[in-house]
């Protein structure tokens, strides 16, 4: 029983990080129908930049507060440079394009930070053991910050006029323009939000899960799977899906074999697509003409 709780708890923390990355997928997909494969790179970039900032002598809090807007800026800049110039964006184009960007960003990180994985210092606090379940203080930080960020993101999209009209932009470009939001603004905001959730995932996760030039790949993939659970459009399900995935991975690693941990996400993806394809298709009744 203790073991089960231990595995579940570790999974909750890990899963929150996936959930944050998944939010970014949804934010962009809802506006541009693009699966942004650079999503995981935002997290890796934030983690590595924060490590360098701390290494340069900045206090942890300052480093984090500097890095998050930086990554948001880079996310928007990359969108302006690579995605904005494309006139006719097909799924094929968007995948190749964002794959290219993600590959280049990875290599740049490799060039700057080298191949080794590094970790940010843990946030303040001390580890504890409750009922035989060992809890790292960082895991509590991850959980707490994830909940706040996820809630804030959902609130922004669902309860502010601006957020609501941003989402409407995807479905009703004309209507959105009427309330004063251009598709361009909506895209920029979406990438900023994606950069934000990705960067937060990167910095809170870095002390436990480390950051390296290639940590974005699997993080991004798992975030995508979580987002798929929410049909790529539901922020709530995406966040919840991420947490679920994290728990499931830990249970598989604990009770089956840790070697299969990374396969869990994709088995889930295939199963979901197999049995709930309608839960995934955005508008099943949509006119295709």
């Amino acid at each position, binding site marked *: 029983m203790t073991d089960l709780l231990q595995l579940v708890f570790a999974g909750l923390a890990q899963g929150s990080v996936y959930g944050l990355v998944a939010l970014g997928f949804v934010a962009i997909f809802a506006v541009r129908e693009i699966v942004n494969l650079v999503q995981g790179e935002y997290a890796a970039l934030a983690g590595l930049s924060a490590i360098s900032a701390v290494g340069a002598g900045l206090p942890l809090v300052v480093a984090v507060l500097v890095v998050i807007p930086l990554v948001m800026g880079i996310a928007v800049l990359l969108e302006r440079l690579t995605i904005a110039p494309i006139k006719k964006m097909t799924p094929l184009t968007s995948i190749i*394009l964002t794959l290219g960007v993600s*590959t280049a960003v990875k290599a*740049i990180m490799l060039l700057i930070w080298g191949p080794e994985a590094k970790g940010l210092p843990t946030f303040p606090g001390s580890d504890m053991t409750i009922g035989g379940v060992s809890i790292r203080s960082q895991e509590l930080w991850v959980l707490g910050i994830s909940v706040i960020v996820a809630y804030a993101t959902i609130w922004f999209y669902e309860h502010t006029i601006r957020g609501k009209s941003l989402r409407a932009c995807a479905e009703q470009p004309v209507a959105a323009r009427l309330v004063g939001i251009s598709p361009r603004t909506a895209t920029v905001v979406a990438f900023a939000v994606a950069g934000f959730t990705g960067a937060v995932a990167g910095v809170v996760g870095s002390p436990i899960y480390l950051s390296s030039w290639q940590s974005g790949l*699997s993080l991004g993939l798992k975030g995508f799977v979580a987002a798929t659970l929410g049909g790529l459009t539901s922020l709530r399900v995406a966040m919840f899906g991420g947490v679920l995935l994290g728990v499931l991975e830990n249970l598989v690693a604990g009770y089956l074999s840790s070697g299969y941990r990374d396969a869990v996400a994709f088995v889930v*993806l*295939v199963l979901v697509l197999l049995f709930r*394809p309608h839960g995934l298709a955005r508008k099943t009744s949509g006119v295709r*003409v």
Partner: protein
Amino acid sequence: MNPMLKRQLPFLGLAVAMLLFGLLAPHQMVDVGIWALIYGIAAIGLSLLMGLAGQVSLGHAAFIAVGAYTQALLVGNAGWNPLLAAPVAVVASMLVALLVGLPLLRLRGHFLALATLGLGIIVGVFVNEQEFTGGTSGIFGLPNLEFGGRSYDTAQEYFLLLTPVVVIGLWLANNVVHSRTGRALSAVNDSEVAAECLGVDTFALRLRVFVLSAAYAGLSGVFYTHWLTIVNPSVSHFELSVKILLMVVLGGLGTVWGAVIGAIAVQLLDEGLREIIPVLIPSAKGEIQLIGFGVVLVLVIILMPGGLAQLWNKLRSAVQERRHPIIRGEHEHPISQKEQRELLEESLTLLARSDHMPAGQIILKIRGLTKRYGGVTALDHLDLDVKAGEIMALIGPNGAGKTTAFNMITGVLPPTEGSVVLQGIEVAGKQPHVAAAIGATRTFQNLQTFKSTTVIGNVKVARHLRSKAGLLRGMLLLDRAEEKLIDEASQAAIDAMGLTALADKPIADLAFGKQRQVEVARAMALEPSVLLLDEPMAGLSGPERDSLSWLLRRVKDSGVTVLLVEHDVAAVMALADRVAVLDDGKLISLGTPAVVTSDPKVIAAYLGEEDSDTNDSTAGATAAAPTTAIPATGGPA
């Protein structure tokens, strides 16, 4: 020279060039060349998948890995003859693709891409975890390829062995592009809905191409195994998938030649970057050549979406332009209406079929057909019987639900409820190709032409259901006789519409009205039993409208049922046997033109709608059709 033979010449040229390269180039270049060819085989397959099926595999290395591991296990562990093992290895890759493709290819857009990315990881984890695949060390100490008393263990010999494999692989792939399957899938990429309505089973064809592309990857894996003599999990890794993808994108989508050119270019780029980057940045460690891969991918997509092929074409046409400036202008020989009708009589005999339902029987039975979007009901319990051999017109103000009804009858939209029985078979909620196979096809209010091809190219797609060459026959060029028939029938349909002079023009160069005529010709080339035309007169000139009306009557005489939505009420009343009037989703009147035009409900509906109608047509500046939504007062002309 025979054009068919001429088409084969470049392959001969490639073979000779590769032979010379293999014999004369220094050892080190041949070594690089071998890898370009091994990965090039996989790239040819991926090029088919991306160019034809419009889908992308981000885990293509997984299929290479399945082929490589199967070959290694069979040859290394089970002691099979490599030549016997190779087909099994290829089939293993195909099976995996089939398993992945069956659930995933039904979904549009991004899912196959992401799922194949996951497949790459799963295959990697699997071979890493299993003992029979040798875990991380993999399977090593495998033999070089040996047959016919020769061991292909030097770079030169292996290159020369690969040469015919690549040339033949490319030839087969090129044949697929030009086959019935290739034509249909290319049409799907231009307009999926139009292709489906012409009977193209998108899913089935995509699945076949996906499986075929996995076969190429599997074959690539076989050659990988025998050259490297060691297979370990790294063969399934993401980096290799990206590399293969880059080969296809850089070479140019839509031409399989691009894959081979891309393979050479990327292999050289790879070698070059690995040499250059450490010199420029001495501290660089790791797979820094990825930076080049990423940047090249992005630049190609932004600046040169057609890859090297596009660049080559631009250069070539620029040179040609300078040498022989093209004289702009049409070379159409206008033919008189009389001549055209003579032509038409001839072509109609070609299209005539004897298996139409006897006139007067109910060919299309619609019951309770309803479509609701949230709270809005677009069509409300429509009941309608259409008799074989009649021309039935569906009219009504904008937003009355005419096109919605068409969409549900042809399977483009699933109905919320209700049934559509076509020639005794329920088609409601099925894919459009199902209705097409039963004999119902359509044209579209908003043009759905296949923009990347010519007029005749558009029409040929409609012969999909009237021909049957599969992937294999197309690959092996065993479809020539059938292709000839397709050409003839398509030409006949074009002649019938009076478009003979435009047959070889790119459809995108045609005026709107002409494109609409091509759509009608295309629909007729299918030899449908029920022809559904959505505003066929829109955008046509007066004489063109007269021709079309005349044509439709002739079509009807040959036993075809015609159902049309039309705004030109005068034309409708002149043409239709019966008219159904929809207003606000409901059928308000049904009968002969005379009955309908005197129905007070119809007059009220049209008068009441006039304002919003004009608003609509200005806002949605689509068809720019001179619609005349006035109450029809005149009787049948």
